[in-house]
């Protein structure tokens, strides 16, 4: 398939997030020129001063929906985008800010702001897919640079990206790591976490924190039982499940099972 001369227009959009995922794109130092050569970066506030006019062939959306204004803005982004890809734990699962979903938002506001009455916010932080149809979700907190380049390359030639949904354990074993859970007794979320980071933490003798959210077909209750045997208490386990992907189905359900 020969490519048309017209470069696809790329938009990068930010909702409630830390910017880490967008910055992954800028972090593609060696490949950035190639990216700029392959797509027309039409809107990317982190990198350029563009305008929100017109339509976009590909939109990368970072961040979750936490305000009414954003809930409306994402509808506009969706209308302007032919293909919409969400990037990162905020956009795909609600992010760390979804911890508010488990608590009373007014209590948080009173604790953080001197004048909570000036703050207008939703009581929840929700993934983009709860609001508009999403064509592809790229996980991670932050996303991996290699995976982002893979998604872009795949998009450009019209193929499915290679971002398998298996466990971190599989990658961990490909790398030849010694399992930290079996050999050191270190709690690890790898067996229920989606591949993508190339088993980064276990490669440095740390347990997996679940940055990439749930893998397909996870079994959290069985993992909890093992964590318990390793001496990780109930409250600690609740916190273990409730981080960047706290609101993602299997993590959420398992943490709720652990509530006092």
């Amino acid at each position, binding site marked *: 398939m*020969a*490519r048309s001369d017209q470069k696809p227009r790329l938009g990068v959009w930010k909702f409630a997030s830390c910017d880490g995922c967008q910055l992954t794109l800028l972090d593609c130092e060696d*490949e950035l020129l*190639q*990216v700029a*050569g*392959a797509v027309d970066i039409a809107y990317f506030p982190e990198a350029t001063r563009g305008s929100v006019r017109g339509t976009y062939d590909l939109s990368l959306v970072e961040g979750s929906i936490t305000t009414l204004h954003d809930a409306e803005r994402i509808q506009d982004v969706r209308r302007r985008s032919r293909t919409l890809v969400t990037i990162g734990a905020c956009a795909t699962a609600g992010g760390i800010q979804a911890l508010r979903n488990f608590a009373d938002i007014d209590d948080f506001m009173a604790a953080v702001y001197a004048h909570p009455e000036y703050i207008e916010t939703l009581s929840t932080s929700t993934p983009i897919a709860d609001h508009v149809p999403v064509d592809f979700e790229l996980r991670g907190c932050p996303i991996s640079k290699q995976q982002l*380049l*893979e998604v*872009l*390359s*795949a998009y*450009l*030639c019209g*193929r499915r990206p*290679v971002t*398998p*949904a*298996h*466990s971190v*354990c*599989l990658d961990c*074993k*490909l*790398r*030849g*790591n*010694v*399992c930290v*859970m*079996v*050999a*050191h007794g270190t709690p*690890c979320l*790898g*067996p*229920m976490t989606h591949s993508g980071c190339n088993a980064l933490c276990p490669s440095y*003798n740390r347990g997996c924190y679940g940055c990439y959210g749930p893998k*397909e*077909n*996870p*079994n959290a209750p*069985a*993992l909890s*039982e*093992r964590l318990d045997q390793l001496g990780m208490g109930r409250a600690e386990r609740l916190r273990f499940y409730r981080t960047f992907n706290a609101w993602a189905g299997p993590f959420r359900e398992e943490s709720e099972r652990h509530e006092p």
Partner: protein
Amino acid sequence: MDNVDDGSVITRQGLQCLLDALAQRGYTVVGPTVRDQAIVYEELARTDELPAGWTDEQDGGHYRLKRRSDEALFGYAVGPHSWKRFLHPPKVSLWQATRNGDELRFVPARDEPPRYAFIGVRACELAAISIQDRVLMGDEYADPHYRSRREQAFLVALNCSEAGGTCFCDSMNTGPDVKEGYDLVLTELLDGDNHLFLIRSGSEEGAEILAELPREPATEAHQAAATAVVEKTRSQMGRSMPQTAIPALLMDNLEHPRWDEVADRCLSCSNCTMVCPTCFCTTVEDTSDLEGVTAERSRRWDSCFTSDFSYIHGGSVRSSTRSRYRQWMTHKLATWVDQFGTSGCVGCGRCITWCPVGIDITEEVRAIHDDVSSRDKE
């Protein structure tokens, strides 16, 4: 050349001479060493890189390095790695394609593997290698990547002096004594400060190398000591496989409630298949660059515990953990026999130790076996 096949004994210095002789012949020497609190297989050059004085404590989902009271170099059971990582590597590039205008060019990936010499290949591991030989190069559809590594490999086998807590080679008839398929075989003999290795050759090249080593002929006492080592190991098996017609047992009980029970515990994480020295499944992945000029196809280990593994048009055939665990166990122990003429399990125990939740293939067979035979009695 004197007759070395009656057995000789070498010292630890002699073992160093062996490593040197292999390196001199151009082999990349790989053997056991301690890394990240486990005994793994890595390239090594000196005997002091071997796990002297270390052993392991193994159980379902549990592995700990432990200090030994002696300085044995091979006083441990198999760890998380197997020789599969070298003979059938986790990732292999298959080909690249480049586009120049309308012209497409396909270039097979260069695959020039090293000539490996493996140090300390256990009986169960020799059996696993022979099973992979059958699977990956046993008929006209040979895997060139496996074959090129395997045909050049030099195997220094080892009679086990220590069985691990999850070993069950005795009940799979694969060990702990080394029977065939090696170039050299060692038995470690420790008697106080007297630290020797009984060594025998099993191939011409093995005999040639052995003839170069400083050695003494083995006495009857050495032979007897070596036999005693293996017999002691045989009596220490941490696990055993029920002695019954397992293929029929499993295939007649495909709807047994035990599959549901194990599915409740199984994480579907794929660790068991990754560490298993006989599991051979791979998938291919295609990638292309941003400019759409080059594409690459590569191959990596895959597992029947993933959903992509059984994905066909319309979805995954095995979406439940129950069906995946059943696939793994029936393949290892039943359908493998139909396919390749032997069991797919050699009793090394790795899948038990390295399963994060300690699921035990021998216990799963026993559960179905005991339940069926108790019902038969009624």
